[in-house]
């Protein structure tokens, strides 16, 4: 029997090693796997490259991972936040590296990583500083920039419903980058609000097929970042 369930978030993130590239699902706090991130902080892996659209909020979740000095390199499209000083301070102090990637290029690079496409051309960023030093090419009357795939050692993902084969569904705009990151990581670790039996998710409605998922842990009532921030919490508590 194939059973990808694990008993705890600690067990789920146990394999992550120092120096790993870790993709973290979520767009801001929505879809962010906060319990897995906190478990990763507890676990202690460091020198991580983190891939996320943003850099976290307040001093919890992704911002806490960064604030606790575990991330040496950030790949993201929008590192500014009205709710977090963690990244800006480290960045200005030269203590964290930033690879700034336009949002659609970030999504496409991650998809390419998952789909075995090592490079592709996109019109995005041509003529801007973000295309400097990159290969340009004229095709069909347009100018395009060559972008490379992005793959990860681990993806930390939050979903709505999972089954023990790793099939996933998401909730509304919490879907965002997560299905792509599941594809692009060698090991995909998922926290699910609910784990059900195979077959309970309609095969037509599966968003992430189980082949892209390695470990699933149930977290029925995930923490809400903005509430923690309003309460002034910071992780570790």
């Amino acid at each position, binding site marked *: 029997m194939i059973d990808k369930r694990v008993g705890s978030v600690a067990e789920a993130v146990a394999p992550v090693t120092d120096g790993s590239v870790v993709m973290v699902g979520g767009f801001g706090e929505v879809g962010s796997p906060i319990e897995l991130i906190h478990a990763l902080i507890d676990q202690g892996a460091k020198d991580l490259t983190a891939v996320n659209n943003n850099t976290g909020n307040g001093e919890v979740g992704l911002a806490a991972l960064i604030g606790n000095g575990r991330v040496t390199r950030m790949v993201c499209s929008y590192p500014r936040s009205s709710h977090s000083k963690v990244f800006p301070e480290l960045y200005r102090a030269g203590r964290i590296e930033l690879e700034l*990637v336009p949002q659609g290029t970030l999504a496409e690079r991650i998809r390419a990583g998952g789909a075995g496409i090592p490079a592709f051309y996109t019109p995005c960023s041509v003529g801007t500083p973000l295309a400097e030093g990159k290969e340009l090419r004229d095709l069909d009357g347009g100018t395009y920039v060559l972008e490379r795939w992005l793959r990860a050692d681990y993806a930390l993902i939050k979903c709505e419903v999972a089954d023990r084969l790793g099939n996933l569904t998401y*909730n509304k705009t919490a879907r965002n980058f997560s299905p792509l990151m599941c594809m692009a990581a060698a090991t995909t670790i998922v926290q699910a609000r609910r784990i059900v039996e195979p077959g309970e998710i309609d095969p037509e409605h599966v968003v992430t097929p189980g082949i892209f998922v390695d470990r699933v842990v149930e977290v029925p009532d995930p923490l809400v970042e903005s509430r923690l921030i309003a309460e002034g919490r910071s992780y570790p508590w």
Partner: protein
Amino acid sequence: MVTPSPGAGWSREEMAARAARDIPDGAYVNLGIGIPELVARFVPEGRTFLYHTENGLLGMGPPPAPGEEDPELINAGKRPVTMIPGASFFHHADSFAMIRGGHLDVCVLGAMQVSREGDLANWSTGEPGAIPAVGGAMDLVVGVKTVLVLTQHVTKTGEPKIVERCTYPLTGRRVVSRIYTDLAVIEVAREGLRLLETAPGVTEDEVRDKTGAPLA
């Protein structure tokens, strides 16, 4: 309701309403954060726009009533939204396939600078120490068929935002179609900028004075 501007020129609401008039019925529209969001409040009678938000929703509705917010239903500005009947959710690669693939008809964006050739700068001052943050803007300007800019005509310190050449880092080259400011509507034509319309109480000379590039 459109709040009239206190002095000469258009209010933010009037600017948004003016831009909305140029968006055709049935258009798929992406609205940037800030003043562009106001466009949704001024859809002309008899038209329907379908709103796309790049974080993965087509068929975005108005903001929810207080207390009705769904924490997992947000827009690209990370604010709570609603959805209309016939909405759909999708992941970021599909969302940006819509953008990059030319499927959206119109996007309305803010600007720090627009050049006479339609270059747009709206993501960074390029100052040392500034945290650069680009988000989806570079994809929107290359992918969406018509890029409209909504912006104050000059900066807070009175500098023109419509310029011969952008001095800030670009978001995209030759991407803007029209500029809607508090003072005027300006078209980016092949031969340069064309003044289409001035706000009530604003003279063409005043617009030219406050514009850093020639206006035909």
